[in-house]
């Protein structure tokens, strides 16, 4: 009876308090790559533990020598709940993926008709004739695009432009969109009783920090920071009020740019934690259970 209880407790812990605590541990952001791996470890371990708990409970009840009606009912219920959780995840993943890909396909089609390829700006960069200063990328294998508006192009100095392009290309190269998509799926599948909102927000921030670092290596920190401020200020909706807190994580990004010291020990520890989350439950809880079946 210990296996389902342990796995269930682990699932609850990893789904609720762990993301909330991890989102508050600001120091982890100084090793963004390791932190991103840890977030994925937490999410994966939570899902596996939840599914494992259901299956373990079902087998525990049904594998008895003489199963009574109550154990059979409990086993059936555990299986049902497990199937619902898994089904909900898969369905949300399918829906989210389909929706994102359709949106991107449509956007890419319009971009290719309306944007101007400008090799002087950068290879494969599309320029949109519009005053609102925006820079973004559209992910997709072999079909990705980096887009700048004329408004952005007009406001950026050459070294700032290099930083912006390096930032966008870092996103595309590292496929941050896939990580974000996975956490969006989690959030949409379980919006309430799992701390998926803080997880999604933090993962989004970490992806930006990673791209910022790549851009800073390429163009320098100062041009990147200037570009961030210029484009954030230029795109600000007129008369927007309030929002004194750092809603978009922009201040955090600039703060993190100031820190350049490498932290190999912290990175190793964070990575080890991510590995442990997946290995330890498997070795000590799931292994013995599977062996005893």
């Amino acid at each position, binding site marked *: 009876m210990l296996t389902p209880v342990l796995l269930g407790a682990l699932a609850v812990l990893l789904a609720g308090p762990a993301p909330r605590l991890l989102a508050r541990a600001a120091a982890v952001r100084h090793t963004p790559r390791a932190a991103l791996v840890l977030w994925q470890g937490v999410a994966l371990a939570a899902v596996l533990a939840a599914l494992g708990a259901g299956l373990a409970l079902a087998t525990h009840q049904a594998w008895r020598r003489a199963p009574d009606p109550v154990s059979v009912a409990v086993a059936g219920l555990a299986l049902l709940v497990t199937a619902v959780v898994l089904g909900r995840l898969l369905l949300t993943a399918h829906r989210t993926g389909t929706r*994102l890909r359709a*949106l*991107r396909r449509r*956007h890419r*089609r*319009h*971009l*290719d*008709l*309306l944007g101007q390829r400008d090799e002087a700006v950068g290879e494969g960069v599309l320029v*949109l*004739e*519009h005053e*609102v200063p*925006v*820079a*973004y*990328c*559209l992910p997709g294998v072999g079909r990705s695009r980096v887009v700048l508006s004329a408004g952005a192009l007009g406001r950026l100095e050459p070294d700032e432009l290099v930083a*912006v392009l390096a*930032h*966008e290309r870092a*996103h595309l190269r590292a496929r*941050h*969109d896939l990580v*974000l*998509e996975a*956490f*969006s*799926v989690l*959030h*949409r599948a379980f919006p309430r009783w799992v701390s998926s*909102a803080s997880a*999604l927000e933090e993962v989004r921030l970490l*992806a930006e920090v990673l791209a910022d670092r790549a851009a800073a290596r390429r163009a320098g*920190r*100062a041009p990147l*920071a*200037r*570009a*961030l*401020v210029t*484009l*954030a*200020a230029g*795109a*600000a*909706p007129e008369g*927007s*009020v309030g*929002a*004194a807190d*750092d*809603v*978009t994580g*922009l*201040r955090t990004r*600039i703060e993190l*740019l*100031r820190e350049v010291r490498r932290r190999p020990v912290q990175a190793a520890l964070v990575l080890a934690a991510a590995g442990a989350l997946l290995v330890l439950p498997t070795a000590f809880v799931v292994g013995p259970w599977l062996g005893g079946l």
Partner: protein
Amino acid sequence: MPSSRPVLGDLERAVMERLWTAGEASLTVREVHAGLAQEREIAYTTVMTVMDRLARKGLVLQEREGRAYGYRARGSRAEMTAELMRETLDDFADHDRGTALVAFVDAASPEDVAALRRALAELV
């Protein structure tokens, strides 16, 4: 057929350019073909296929004019660009659902911008 895609996209652009230049007036496939044929060797049926595709995607409006179909762009180039930009900004603002595009930076409040400028001054 990976190589045919850029060609097709190129053709779609050329057709759209013609329609945008025509403005409100609609053009027949024959008229667009005549214009394009001055610059490149191209079959009438190819132009028809491309214009049909554009109409199916809703980028071009198709109207019956007597015995032929007239085509015009859904909006001017500037209008369609503005529309695309509006969709882009909406997508950026939609944080909860997972966005299709990845913005370099989100729009910040004036307070945020002031704080950023202070942080920037310390950085450089």
